[in-house]
């Protein structure tokens, strides 16, 4: 069938399907997608939220020290909601870099949310606004928790986990930027090692078969190989290419 015809078919089908999902008659596209609740996501994300809040405090302290005042870091966390990119932007400015350099560094780091957004798109149904709002709750941790390991994503886990992380990140930033100097730097507590450990914890359950293991190792190898040569963020985006191992002929 022509792709455009398929799409038209799909559109007419979608309203009915959405209604069925709303009434609990249908679990969504294919089977068993929306079996978990928002609360499951919020619960599963707890340990991540603690680390993210600590990281938020770190960000608030650093941004304040880089001359961002107390309000701009909080506004940035509330709108950008992507830790590593915010750190990058603020440290470029703190080191006397230009606005263009800071923005470029941050957006390169966030470029991975392009393919990540595509991966969750089929499961974010409803109006354009509702899809837009939930898309903003996609961060590495909420996305990985929502991954069911078979290429499908649970939108409720994504939203439940994303909301808790959002509160932790914005709240942590506020504490750091307003009261930061009194707290000291959370990095001395080993927080910088908590993040790779958390990502490892998210990765392990995905490695049940050989293909995902190969993709993880290839992704890690690509990222490490490019780190000395490419600007921050590019190695992660390049590593995403490892998922092409899954192309079906």
């Amino acid at each position, binding site marked *: 069938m022509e792709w455009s015809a398929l799409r038209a078919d799909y559109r007419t089908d979608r309203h009915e399907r959405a209604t069925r999902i709303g009434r609990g008659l249908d679990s969504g596209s294919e089977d068993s997608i929306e079996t978990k609740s928002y609360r499951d996501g919020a619960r599963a994300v707890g340990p991540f939220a603690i680390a993210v809040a600590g990281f938020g405090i770190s960000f608030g302290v650093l941004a304040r020290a880089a001359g*961002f005042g107390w309000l701009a870091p909080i506004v940035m966390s509330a709108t*950008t909601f992507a830790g590593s*990119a915010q750190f990058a932007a603020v440290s470029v400015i703190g080191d006397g870099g230009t606005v263009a350099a800071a923005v470029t560094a941050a957006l390169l780091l966030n470029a991975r949310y392009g393919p990540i957004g595509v991966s969750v798109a089929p499961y974010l149904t409803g109006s354009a606004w509702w*899809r*837009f709002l939930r898309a903003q709750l996609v961060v590495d941790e909420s996305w990985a928790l929502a991954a069911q390991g*078979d290429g499908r994503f649970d939108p409720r886990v994504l939203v439940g986990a994303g909301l808790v992380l959002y509160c932790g990140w914005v709240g942590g930033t506020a504490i750091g930027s307003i009261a930061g100097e009194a707290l000291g730097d959370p990095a001395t507590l080993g927080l910088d090692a908590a993040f*790779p450990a958390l990502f490892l914890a998210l990765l392990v359950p995905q490695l049940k078969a050989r293909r995902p293991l190969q993709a993880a190792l290839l*992704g890690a190898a690509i990222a490490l190989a490019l780190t000395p040569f490419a600007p921050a963020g590019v190695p992660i985006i390049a590593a995403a290419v490892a998922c092409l191992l899954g192309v*079906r002929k």
Partner: protein
Amino acid sequence: MSSTWLVVVLVGAGTIAIKAAGPILLGGKPLPERFTGVVELLAPAVLGALVAVQTFGAGQSLVVDERLIGVAAAAVALWRKAPLLIVVVVAAGATALARALA
């Protein structure tokens, strides 16, 4: 507008647009069949890269430092099926301890 606020606005607007692109343009539509295998491997590929870069990356260089001790300790905790909170505490604690001793 001061340059700091300009950074906040531009990074915010850019990130919001990047995050929204997929779900706005493709939202609710299934991906073509041949891409499902690709999406399946996106999470392990990106997570593998994040673990590697955050363990060994320091700006544009690769270093072996106390973070590796923390991540190795976390790997052992994961292998012993420890709860996530314990995994985080073990990773941060091992790294902080190694730094204090160094």
